[in-house]
């Protein structure tokens, strides 16, 4: 009975990244700065005041920067100054370096290429089929939902050769969510150590990247970067399943590292 029911609706799975998917561009990403004259004219004090998590900083030469790794997608800056700030769109939200999340770009393309080459040299063996192990280091529960959504028939990561595994001994990629609660520092470190080389660590969600609004707190370490060495940084509160897929594919090199924020906002309209 269930089989017939399942067959009736046809293919639900998205073809992304092979085929375009309009929902991939539909979900909001962290706030970004428009390349407009209003951005350059914005007074620094007002800009900083807009953000409850201090993600907006003023540039020395005038203009503003948004640290997407801290953005919790509250929307206040976009609502207050839509001429300066906008939501970023598109599924490619992750970077290989933490400074790479600051838009407009502060990092040079050479640095990015260097980091990419180092990562690829270390993880040459992981190309087609990798196993993922997820650890919750004090998240609010929504990132787990978005990661589990990868297993539903709409996203179906199995078609891309990505699988979830229970034992870190079998895992290649470590997905970490949560702001790095101190209670999970030792278990996270143990899980990381229990994984054999080569391994890649992906920090999923703004909490994991920068601590989110939960930081600073006596019980939280402001992101997981101080507990395990992170290779791929993915902001979002929570990041959409397409963004997570993009980050995973970037981690194994099937999406170029330059597809993420720093390159995509340098001198152009955000999509």
């Amino acid at each position: 009975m269930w089989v017939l029911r399942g067959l009736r609706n046809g293919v639900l799975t998205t073809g992304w990244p092979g085929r375009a998917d309009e929902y991939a561009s539909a979900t909001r990403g962290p706030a970004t700065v428009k390349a407009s004259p209003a951005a350059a004219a914005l007074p620094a004090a007002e800009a900083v005041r807009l953000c409850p998590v201090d993600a907006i900083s003023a540039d020395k030469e005038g203009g503003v920067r948004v640290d997407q790794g801290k953005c919790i997608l509250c929307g206040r800056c976009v609502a207050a100054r839509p001429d300066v700030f906008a939501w970023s769109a598109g599924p490619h939200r992750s970077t290989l370096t933490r400074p790479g999340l600051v838009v407009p770009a502060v990092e040079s393309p050479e640095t990015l290429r260097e980091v990419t080459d180092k990562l690829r040299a270390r993880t040459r063996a992981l190309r087609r089929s990798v196993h993922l192990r997820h650890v919750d280091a004090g998240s609010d529960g929504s990132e787990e939902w978005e990661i589990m959504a990868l297993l539903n028939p709409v996203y179906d990561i199995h078609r891309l050769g990505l699988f979830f595994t229970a034992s870190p001994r079998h895992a290649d990629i470590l997905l970490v969510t949560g702001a790095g609660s101190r209670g999970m520092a030792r278990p996270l470190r143990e899980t990381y150590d229990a994984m054999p080389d080569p391994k890649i660590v992906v920090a999923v969600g703004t909490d994991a990247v920068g601590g989110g609004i939960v930081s600073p707190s006596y019980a939280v370490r402001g992101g997981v970067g101080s507990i395990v060495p992170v290779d791929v940084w993915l902001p979002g509160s929570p990041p959409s399943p397409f963004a997570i897929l993009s980050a995973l594919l970037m981690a194994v090199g099937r999406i170029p590292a330059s597809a993420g924020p720093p390159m995509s906002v340098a001198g152009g309209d955000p999509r």
Partner: protein
Amino acid sequence: MTAATEPELAASVPALWHLVVRQIAAGSRLADLFGTAHPDGLVLTAQLAGRGTITSLEALLPSDQVRYPALTPQVAPAFWYEREIHDLFGVVPEGHPRLEPLVLPASSTDLPMPGAGAAPVAIDPDPGVLPRHAAGPGLFTIPHGPVRSGVTESIEYLVETPGEDIPHLNMRIFYKHRGIEKRFEGLSPADGVLLAERTEGVASVANAIAFCEAVERIAGLDVPWRALLIRVAQAELERLACHLDAIVRLADGAGLAVATARFGWHKERVLRLAGELSGSRFGRGVVVPGGVSGLPLLGPADLLGAIGDLDRRITPDLDLLMGTASFLDRLRRTGPLNPARAAEHGALGPIGRASGAGEDTRQSRPYAAYGLLGVTASSRTDGDALARLEVRIDEIGGAVHLLRQAADELADAGSGQLRAELSPADGRATGWAEAPHGEVLYDVRVEGGVITRCRVRPAAFHNLVLMHEVFAGDILTDFPFIEASFGLPVAGAAR
């Protein structure tokens, strides 16, 4: 509903307990028990949910006193609350049956003390303070967690077993403690709602509603009708998503691959609808103190169409699921929660209602637009996993109905502002909402325009302790079903 009232002050802690016991005997239930640091010591507040309102009772424990008589021997639901107070403030309830660290096993004397102005920089949990849980003769302990198989939240279950049965279960929830209550201190109410949304990420809207209700009560605001309708719509979409998630986990545990896939698809569609409506798949950024942040991005007609589409697809699958005998067999008589025990504890949400004991806050203490829209609470008496599933399915139907009603009302509601102006006001009030897992309480105190104490009591913290009681004759393979049928977010329990 009722205006913010100052809590009744008792002369001493034993007098406070006396009042609490009397009110419980008169028909209330213990909704919350927490402490607030005070210059003169520690203020213990007990909140009781009675007919139509929440009453607060307080007493001061002077700073030279570290020990006080425990409430748990007289009022069993206070079990975890007193342990939490012990962890955060360092006071000792004498006569507490099992005083182990719950949310913060700390060996240092530097404790968080919510309500005190200062906050310690860092407190690392010390596993050495945890009891080693020696199993009895013939048993050994399986430590399950905090990093468990699958994509799950971090919690550790210590299963004491002779090999197959589960004679006893212990839980360690401190791994995910983030110090949320302390983080609230110093935030403005406008920023506080952002933190409230991220306390329990899967119930963002309900937490935001409860927080905003408390703030609005302090300021004496009336929220516009349209905003209330939008709040209801987002909250019911969230309820749909949570209940579908529970069904996905149950189907996955039973190995029904097609059912898991189909309900995963339905949940994805609900989340996409929520995203289309508000811009965020979890409904974040919608509820703000005073109203809502903006109109839904979908018009009422489109919303009605989308809801109808969802209903048309979900209902046949639910019927087929409830006709799959092998699935129902796994759930029947699994994880039974004794109705008497549920009533004594005051179990919240679907767990309580499945044991015939719970109330639905939308019905008993209506908030937002629920009073006028009308909610029928679903109820069962068996208390097993199947009953909990049936309650959730009833609530899915109820949520669809409420969404239709809200969309209709929105179409007729005309125009007007969506947000009342939040004037700076000091005071203290309690807000509540019925999250998909049960009632969530926020007790907010605002002084000088910033929050000085915000008590968060999600349903998960109240209900999770009942996991100890439901393993009657079940074996290890029933564990995922019981956990999924409870469906409580650990982020809410540990905060």
